[in-house]
């Protein structure tokens, strides 16, 4: 049984004229000790998905469906049990560290508090552990730094304090929302290595949300690609980068900067607001491979092997394809070549 299962998860905002769905029919499983990478367009609902697992969606938002963590549906769990789970079993590194730390408390106090609350250890022990944790995330002079306030730290240091806080209680699932964007590549490499170690030693699973495809390639075992609140493609890392099938994934790979002087090739247009999505495939209005049928009915997320069997391109089935899911009616055609 997997550690976390999202089943038909929808997330919506209440608004004056009804509700607006921003995440739609999300299904995925994360195993113990697995790093699952989640990638997608800015505003596609990655952070909201994370917040719904943590049970801390904004007031005007609500989730429907099932979020099953260690056998319990978190969406039906009472407040108190959810609070206990959060911080201990489940923790999160927030995307904007500066605003998730309390500006009037020292960073040492904030990390130590997590430890005294959830681990039931003494204040003194907590301070020592805090220093150890800050060392582990490569903050120099931790003994001095614990007495400082967030505004006295650099952007990347604040992010590392958040990381220290989130791993303090050795959670079974760590949600890392852009955990290393504020970090230079050398420290980034060290932090990712630390997370990998925790994964191996403590079987910690990680939901890794990032825009950095290089980080995904190096750290995740499986990847989900999201667009407009939906999973568009889901596969093993090597399968996804070797054999991308969804035109949105292809567009992302093509957007990476190449040589200097050559213009970049972003996906044309911008993602529409959640209440203005096109009919049929939600990517169809920006897709250069779109055909008239794309506008008719929204494709389902189905295994590539099935998509390929239904067409006359069955020769393309590879042994990977059972693990590879795509939401595109042209999934069976190999639309892109390196």
């Amino acid at each position, binding site marked *: 049984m997997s550690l976390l299962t999202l089943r038909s998860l929808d997330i919506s905002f209440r608004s004056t004229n009804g509700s607006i769905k921003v995440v739609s029919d999300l299904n995925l499983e994360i195993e113990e000790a697995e790093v699952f990478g989640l990638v997608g*367009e800015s505003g596609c609902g990655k952070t909201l998905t994370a917040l719904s697992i943590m049970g801390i969606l904004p007031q005007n938002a609500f989730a429907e469906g099932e979020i099953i963590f260690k056998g319990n549906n978190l969406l039906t769990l009472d407040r108190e049990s959810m609070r206990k789970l959060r911080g201990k079993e489940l923790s999160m590194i927030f995307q904007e560290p500066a605003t998730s730390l309390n500006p009037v408390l020292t960073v040492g106090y904030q990390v130590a508090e997590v430890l005294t609350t959830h681990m039931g250890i003494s204040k003194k022990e907590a301070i020592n552990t805090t220093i150890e944790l800050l060392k582990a995330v*490569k903050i*120099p002079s931790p003994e001095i730094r614990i007495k400082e306030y967030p505004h006295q730290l650099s952007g990347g*240091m604040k992010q590392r304090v958040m990381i220290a806080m989130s791993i303090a209680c050795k959670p079974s699932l760590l949600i890392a929302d852009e955990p290393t964007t504020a970090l*230079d590549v050398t420290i980034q490499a060290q932090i990712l290595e630390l997370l990998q170690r925790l994964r191996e030693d403590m079987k910690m699973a990680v939901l890794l949300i990032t825009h950095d495809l*290089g980080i995904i390639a190096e750290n995740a075992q499986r990847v989900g690609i999201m667009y407009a609140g939906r999973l568009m493609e889901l596969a093993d890392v090597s399968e996804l980068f070797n054999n991308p099938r969804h035109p949105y994934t292809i567009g992302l790979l093509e957007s*990476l*900067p190449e040589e200097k002087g050559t213009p*970049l090739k972003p996906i044309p247009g911008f993602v529409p607001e959640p209440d203005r999505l096109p009919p049929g495939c939600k990517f169809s209005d920006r897709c250069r491979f779109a055909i008239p049928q794309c506008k008719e009915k929204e494709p389902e997320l189905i295994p590539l092997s099935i998509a390929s069997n239904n067409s006359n391109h069955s020769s393309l089935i590879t042994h990977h394809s059972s693990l590879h899911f795509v939401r595109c009616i042209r999934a069976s055609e190999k639309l892109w070549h390196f």
Partner: protein
Amino acid sequence: MALLKVDSLKKYFPVKKGFMTAPALVKAVDGIDLSIDEDRVFALVGESGCGKSTVARLILRLLPPTSGKVLFQDKNVFELSGDNLKAFRKSVQIIFQDPFASLNPRKSILDTIAEPLRIHRIVEKKKIKEKVLELLNKVGLGSDILNRYPHEFSGGQRQRICIARALAVSPKVIVADEPLSALDVSIQAQILNLLQELKREYKISFLFISHALNIVNYFSDAIGVMYLGKIVEHAKTEDLFRKPFHPYTEILLSSAPTIKVQSDELEIRSKNVKLRTRNLKLKNGLGEVPSPIDIPPGCPFHPRCPKRFEPCDKVIPVLKESGGRLVSCHLY
């Protein structure tokens, strides 16, 4: 002529060590020189905490320096007042590292972007809304967000609101502190294309702070590599990426994550998908990050340097010319 010049700039912050002892100093910026010409992009790269954002805030006059000067069009910005100061505030804009913290939570998006337009009288009153829409459009946001508030957006959307705000007053210099890190690669590409267009059209110069080396390589003309408050290598972008001189630069360039897929049967041959992996040996050998409170003697990089030799732990190297660039390392 240099549009913006930074001259021996220093910023030290006092920090408490213990209850009784005298405060220690964080030497966040420790004597930096750089200059940016019109229509050029100067990138600042370096380890987290090495002082990049502090340089940015000093240039914008958001912090007083411990010593040194920032010259904009040959005038020391720390001595500006009245109309000159106002003109400076318009000409030099910043995009902050943390978009959420730099937006006023009680101001709607319309007001956020209209404010600089009003203060600097960029357009007539009745044209303000139109101009705001045009700016939002450029960064890929629609008209239906005008009356929403910062907390109602995703991280990347907030970053784009900040970019639109910086562009509003047609600045001459944009100091961009990690402007793209919150954005997905497709929007990164769109914003980079936009910045390049602006650069061409309005001759805007940039101080571009970023950890994303592929973007730095793509966008900048020259690079300063910072280490513990100092510039240790200063070179043309193409030279630096062709051959890094300073051992720290070398490690930095080899640590970037790349897309390499372990696959037996499928070989990737793509310009987009680079085939290098991180240089593992260098990465593991990098060791502990030294503290800016307690800077090592000699070359500040020597405790972590794989190439250190005799003089490195005693003699401080100076930044000097070597092969058409500046580098501070005893090897050169």
